[in-house]
């Protein structure tokens, strides 16, 4: 910690620490990466929900975060009446039902119009869910975990540690990623869902129950969102605003990884988490507090080189 830089203008005679470079303090470097992965896995799970809905319905759901928040509040309500696991699974079921119902009742009428219409509807849902949650559960944060599965001291190798909740979140993100990959790439159902998203009319003609596929896409996505919500709320806390910040990063993660790739969503989420942490510490403070800006700058650069994202398949169109 020798390199002290004074930030003139902001705090006239105050020293602001500039961390030692990675080669001098490798354990800090390693810890920043691990912590970055911890926050990144939260982005990744919500990004998976976004990718799921995009792959199965070809639209972006801006209400994803608020739906997740809403279902997490429901989980909280269930938990006041039962244990964690039953409450969690009931919440997942309710989330699935809610997602499916939303598609049937709210999205269905606009699905045949331009995709922008659906997107606007999801923006509306964003506001509605936020208002509803505020109305039902009020503005006060709720105490939410960490639950016994994630309790206990952190796991450390020499100086570098990871908490049980963070590790659990990472594992869940990987499991969901794998499940989605298998669903879309290895099952007939996944193929049908992809086909529906790609070309609704053609899918209908080959006998795919298009409407059911769309409903299923929303139901699954809401379920993954609910998992994300329960994990985020344990890490941050449960308020009506909790998921909004995470959503912004989740979108960035999904775009970085490629909107149609579940592996991309996870790689994107983890990369953004790590990048954010590293730039917060290693970018000199004279430049300002740039961790977030830096993460997004990298996204823009990646998209300039690979417009479809890191793992996304470029949309080729025959004309």
């Amino acid at each position, binding site marked *: 910690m020798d390199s002290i830089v004074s930030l003139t203008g*902001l705090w006239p005679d*105050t020293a602001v620490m500039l961390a030692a470079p990675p080669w001098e303090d490798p*354990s800090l470097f390693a810890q920043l990466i691990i912590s970055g992965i911890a*926050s990144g896995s939260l982005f990744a799970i919500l990004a998976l929900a976004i990718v799921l809905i995009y792959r199965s319905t070809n639209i972006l759901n801006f209400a994803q975060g608020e739906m997740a928040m809403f279902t997490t509040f429901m989980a909280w309500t269930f938990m006041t009446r039962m244990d964690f696991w039953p409450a969690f699974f009931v919440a997942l079921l309710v989330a699935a039902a809610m997602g499916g119902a939303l598609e049937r009742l709210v999205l269905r009428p606009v699905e045949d119009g331009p995709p922008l219409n659906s997107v606007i509807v999801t923006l509306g849902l964003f506001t509605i869910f936020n208002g509803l949650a505020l109305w039902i559960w009020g*503005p006060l944060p709720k105490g939410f975990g960490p639950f016994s599965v994630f309790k206990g001291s952190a796991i450390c190798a020499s100086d570098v540690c990871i908490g049980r909740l963070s590790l659990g979140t990472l594992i869940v993100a990987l499991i969901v990623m794998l499940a989605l990959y298998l669903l879309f790439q290895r099952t007939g159902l996944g193929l049908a869902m992809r086909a529906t998203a790609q070309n609704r009319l053609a899918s209908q003609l080959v006998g795919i129950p298009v409407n059911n596929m769309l409903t299923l896409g929303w139901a699954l996505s809401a379920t993954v969102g609910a998992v994300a919500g329960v994990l985020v709320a344990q890490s*941050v806390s449960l308020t009506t605003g*909790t998921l909004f*910040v995470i959503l912004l990063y989740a979108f960035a993660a999904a775009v970085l990884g490629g909107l149609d790739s579940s592996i991309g969503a996870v790689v994107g989420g983890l990369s953004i988490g790590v990048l954010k942490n590293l730039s917060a*510490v290693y970018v000199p403070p004279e430049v300002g507090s740039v961790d977030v800006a830096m993460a997004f700058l990298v996204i*823009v650069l990646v998209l300039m080189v690979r417009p479809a994202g890191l793992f996304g398949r470029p949309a080729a169109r025959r004309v």
Partner: protein
Amino acid sequence: MKPSYRFWIVGLILAAGMLVAVACNGDDDGDGGGTTPDATEPPSTADVPGVSDTEVFLGTHTSLTGPIAAYSIIPNFALAYFDFINATEGGVAGRTIRYKLADDAYDPSKAVDLTRQLVEQDKIFALFNALGTPNHLQVIDYLQERGVPDMYVATGAIEWVKDPSARPLVFGSNPNYTGEGLVLGKYIADNFAGGKVGIILQNDDFGIDGAAGIEIGVGDAVEIVGQLPYEVTDPDLFSQIDTLRAADADVVVLFSTPLLLGNAIKHARNDLNWDVPFVISAVSMNELTGLIAGGDVIEGTVGLVATYMGYHSDIPGVATHIEILDGIGVPPEQASTLSLYSQYVSELMVETLERAGEDLTRESLVAAAESIRDWVCSVCLFPVTLGPDDHDPGQAGAIATFDSNGQIVVSDLAYSWEGVSVADLSVDALVQIDVPSAALTTP
């Protein structure tokens, strides 16, 4: 269709980023203003905006929704308190108090529009208890220019109180963040002498004012190993905590709002097995933070308080508080330092209106506020003194600690910097004062 999505997602993200940048930039603009108010208009009792024979009309921009919606108990309680005064005492000096809350959702641009509406369309008499530092910075000079009293702003930024001659119509309410930082810094110097302190601060007036006070308070007794800023839009404080752990900090100061603060302490305890003591700003010294972080995680965390706690129900003011809360459907266990703060500041407003009396004008209101000396509200630990050169009511605090249930326990160590202007704050300016013994009972 596909590529066009990506464009406008990136566009949306960039737009959001720009908004944040503009908002932050706006803070700086707020500093430079310093316009003189229009003092040429003669006072006239007949035609004062927002004042009739039967009613006085107050209003504010505040947060009922949005990222700091948890603070909405402050305006909502104030509303209930004024209703209580209207019902039990018929208001003040024969006038009932009407209080309009305009929800800006912690969005500075909305605060500007809403404040203009309150002043120009609703024609309120005075702003009362505006909430949100970055928001209020956008309207402070507008209110001065319009001659609207800006009573008891609900943040401790020094901008409101540092120079009453430049902005004669604005009054603070919380202990200012630099004074608070000074006391916390002295506490650290006394308890961690020879050690290392790390500071994590919100990168705006809240954090910067606080960190400045910490720095004065610790003096040479403690080495400051890092001052790490974060933005309100950041999702977590992981990198800051990791860095301070690597720097072997013996104590960490957090000038942060409850959500990120809870997240930071949880990261240290649960993710890193790091049991470093935390010293935190009064902004988060409330039961919500205890709830968010969990009692086992927050236990031992230190900060300043200036009111009794909800569990001090033997204190008549607290009993009244619980009664008013009950009237708006809030159970007694949800009485918090936030709702009690609201009662303090509402009582302060009522006191000011009482002193202004029947001939209520904007000038007489300001004069009435400036006449307050050694006044103690019914839930306050310390007296309030104001004056023409002192628009800073709460200049004292007691050291308090979270217990294992997330409740706050008040200690008998308290300091006052009453009457000391922001520019003159120093360790020597602190006076140790007594804490009422009733405040020392534990839950």
